[in-house]
Every structure is written in structure tokens, then in C-alpha cells.
């Protein structure tokens, strides 16, 4: 299978590989996919409470080159965005940017899900904290 230049670039030089401390209140963690399906993505965001801006993003992905590229791109895109802006990222944007072929569209869907899951996790943490206060 031939990969697009951009997929190769993200695969060879993945942006923001790593982990944030999932116990921190300002960190949201999303893990989506399943090992038996051949891809699992973990995407984490760190949010500035004052501005609602995503100041840091990290990922780890088990999956094909397109899955790695999709999640790498997702971290690049969410960084600097507010949560609401990040929620507007669509899988079709990822497909277009990386020129993913039809059989790899599920990788972009997974990346979108990972963003949403991370934001949801962050919001849940904030919600429970608000109640405590």
C-alpha cells in the first residue's frame, strides 16, 4: 500500500508522542479502539482552566501507519485551540489533510473519537471538582 507524503511524515516524525499524568485535574484522557481490532489510541489534553485553551496534547497509538498519523495530527490540531474549537474537528478534515484512502477512514474516525473522549474526561473531572467546591 502506498502512503501519502503526510502520513509518512507523521509516521516517521510523530508529533507529541508521550503521556501526561492522567491523575492531574487539568488533564483529560481518551482511550478508544480495541487491540483485537488492530488499533487503540490514547489521546491526552492539558487545559488551561482560565482560558479553556488546550495547552498541551500527547498521544500513544497502537495501529497502522494511518492510525498513528491521524492521532499525531489530532494532537497537533487541538493544541492552542479551546475545547469548543477542538470539538469542531471532524474526521473528514483528517481524511483530507492526510489523503487517507477509503479503507483507512476508520483511523480518522478513531482520532475524532479520541479527541472527544479526552475532552469528555476533562469535563467530567471539572464537573466533579465543581461539585466539591
Amino acid at each position, binding site marked *: *500500500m502506498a*502512503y501519502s507524503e503526510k502520513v509518512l511524515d507523521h*509516521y516517521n516524525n*510523530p508529533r507529541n*508522542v508521550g*503521556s501526561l499524568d492522567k491523575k492531574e485535574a487539568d488533564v483529560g484522557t481518551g*482511550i*478508544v*479502539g*480495541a*487491540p*483485537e*481490532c*488492530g*488499533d*487503540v*489510541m*490514547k489521546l491526552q489534553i492539558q487545559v488551561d482552566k482560565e482560558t479553556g485553551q488546550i495547552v498541551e496534547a500527547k498521544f*500513544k*497509538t*497502537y*495501529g*497502522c*501507519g494511518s*492510525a*498513528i498519523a491521524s492521532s499525531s495530527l489530532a494532537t497537533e490540531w487541538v493544541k492552542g485551540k479551546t475545547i469548543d474549537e477542538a470539538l469542531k474537528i471532524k474526521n473528514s478534515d483528517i481524511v483530507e489533510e492526510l489523503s487517507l484512502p477509503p*479503507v483507512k477512514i*476508520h483511523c480518522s*474516525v*478513531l482520532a475524532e*473519537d479520541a479527541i472527544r*473522549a479526552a475532552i469528555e474526561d476533562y469535563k467530567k473531572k471539572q464537573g466533579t471538582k465543581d461539585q466539591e467546591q
Partner: protein
Amino acid sequence: MKQNIRKRPIYMDYNATTPCDPKVVEAMLPFFTEKFGNPASRSHAYGWEAEEAVSMARRQVADLIGAGPKEIVFTSGATESDNLAIKGVAQMYGEKGKHVISCVTEHKAVLDSCKRLETWGYEVTFLPVDARGRIDLDELKKAIRDDTILVTLMAANNETGTLHPIEKIGEITREHGVLFHCDATQAIGKVDIDVDRAKIDLLSLSGHKIYGPKGVGALYVRRRNPRVRLVAQIDGGGHERGMRSGTLAVTQIVGLGKACSLLQEGMKQEVEHCRTLRDRLETSIMDQLDYVYINGDPDNRLPSMTNLSFAYVEGESLIMGMKDLAVSSGSACTSASLEPSYVLKAAGVEDELAHSSIRFSLGRFTKEEEIDVAVEQVVSAVRRLREMSPLYELVQEGVDLKTVQWEAH
């Protein structure tokens, strides 16, 4: 030109296909141009010359498997040989019975031919395999019924290299008066096969897996004790004693014959060469990486290959990481189906490990330096991808992945 060659990846996919040996090409060349006759032309020297070349090739193929030249039918490859053997026997002996026995890990050419029989009203028993890809001989015995006409089992599996005990299988089929077809496409040239010793009645082989050309193969059809008869699947001029019509592909056949005679001479050294390199590859990788598993039967497999699962990394991304290696993967991502290898699945390999499997198959032209480059690439790619793998991270944290609730799609 030189740079071009250098840039090409190291070929470790000999189970998929092999290059033609230069000696094979050399033998073939005159038959494209000067010696272009049709062996069926009985009236002039062009025909005689071609006929003679085909006869010699027939003998070369036959000699390699301990058969007689009259027992060799030339085909377009092992796919056609499998189709002809299975469908041809089923149609010829359908009056006697309509039951066939095969196995879940056979090549698609066998499985789909068997499935075709099912649409014709035949019944097929597909034997299961254990974790090493082995069948249980007692199960084979139990599966044989009064109406069983054929057992079709491969000598060596193309994905895992697991060897079936063909001599014991032949013992059982002969005792029960059932025909034994063996797809030996992967085993030829790597393990000794003698059709009499193994009591094989029909055997498929292919040119392009043994350093011969693509588009040619053979079916061995036993002529004595018992005499096997077939219904032809391609009708026409009655070539190959009526079993396979069509003008003989003389060039290809000469190439196949030459490939067989080269194996006859050099197989012993070649097997040792491959085994040494395979062992070096496998042990070096396993010494440097944890969570690596051998697929297939480590004690009884092709000497030239290893199929390894690298847990917590996905096969396609691993192949991308090993830029200078041409290997294949049991991962879904490398096929159109999105299903991981049915061969590994049948052996009970978990989907996750099937997704992480890589088949390294070596051959005549593999060099020791290439093994060392391969080891280095495998080790560094696996390490890099594990650094990126959320699964590896969880395992390092002591999490049992089986207890995790995954959000599958």
C-alpha cells in the same frame, strides 16, 4: 543502475514468490526464439525438439518427488493443480461417495475448491488445528467414512510453515482406500518428499516458489497402486493425456524442469543455508526483544522461515518501520478483508497477536549480512513503536490487558 539496486529492500518473502534462478532463465531463453515449436506438431523438427524438451522437464519434475514422468501433468500453477485434483477427483469418483476431508488452514486454492464441491452437493469435513497448527491424526481417522473419496492436506503451511505429517497421513488414507492429495507448493525444495514413501496419490507444486517462472506448475497423478483418474477441468485438444488441454507452455515447462533439477542437486546445502540464517534471525530478535512469540510449530516447520508476533505493536506499522525489508504480515491492514489471517486465527492466535505477526521467509539468495540488517531494523522498529504504544505502556504499568473494557468500533 547500481544505486537503484542498492535501494531495493532486502527480500524476505520467498514464500510469496522467488526470483528465477539465472540458470533457469538461461535454460528457457532458446525456447522463446529458435526452439519455439509446438510439442504437438509431430510432422517436423520444430515439434520434435519442443517435445523432447518437455519430456526432459517432465522427467526432472518427476525425479524430484520420486514419481514417473508419465505421472506429471503440467498446469498453470499450484492453484490450477489444486482445482484439478480436487474437482477432478470429486467428479470422477462422485458415484462412489461424496465426502472429502480437508483442513481449516489450507491455502485458498484448496479451501475454495472444497467449497465449490459443497455447492455441488458434496460434504467436506474441515479438520481443526491445535495451537501449533497441527491436525490430530485420530481426528482424521474418525472423520473417514464409507463415502469418503479424498483427503486433501498440505505438506507445509504457507503462513506458519507448520508441517503436516504426510507420511502418517498417507498411511491412514491408503489403509482406508481413500485418495490423498497433497498441496506441496511450499514444501518442495525445503523438505524431502517422495510420493511413494508418503503414499501420496496426487501432489500440487508450483514453479515460482522454487526459483522457476510464474505461470507454471504441475500435478502429480498416480498411475499405479492405485491408478488415479480425473475428470478434466479444461477441455480441448486432449493434451496431457486428456487431463489438461491447451498447447504446452514449453518455455515455462523447461524452466520448471530446470528449477527441479537444480533442487535435486543443491537442496541439501540450500536447506542448511536457510536454516542457519533463519535460526540466526530468530534468536537474535528474541534475544533483544521481549514479548515475541513464534507462530506455528517450532519443532516441525519449514527450515527457511519464521512467523513471529510482536505483541503490542501492529503489523502494518511495523512493516512501515522496516523500510529496507520486504516481508509480509498476518495483519488485517495488509489485506483487503480487514480480517487478520485465518491461518493464525484457526490456531487460536488472539486477534491482537495476529495483527502483530510478521512472516520472514528466506531462500537461496539470502545473505548473512542481510540477516544482520534485518535484525537491526526489526529491533529498532519494534522498540520505537512500543514507545508509541498505549498497550505496551499499560503492560509496563502492570495492567492485564484482558481486564480492560475496550470501546471497540
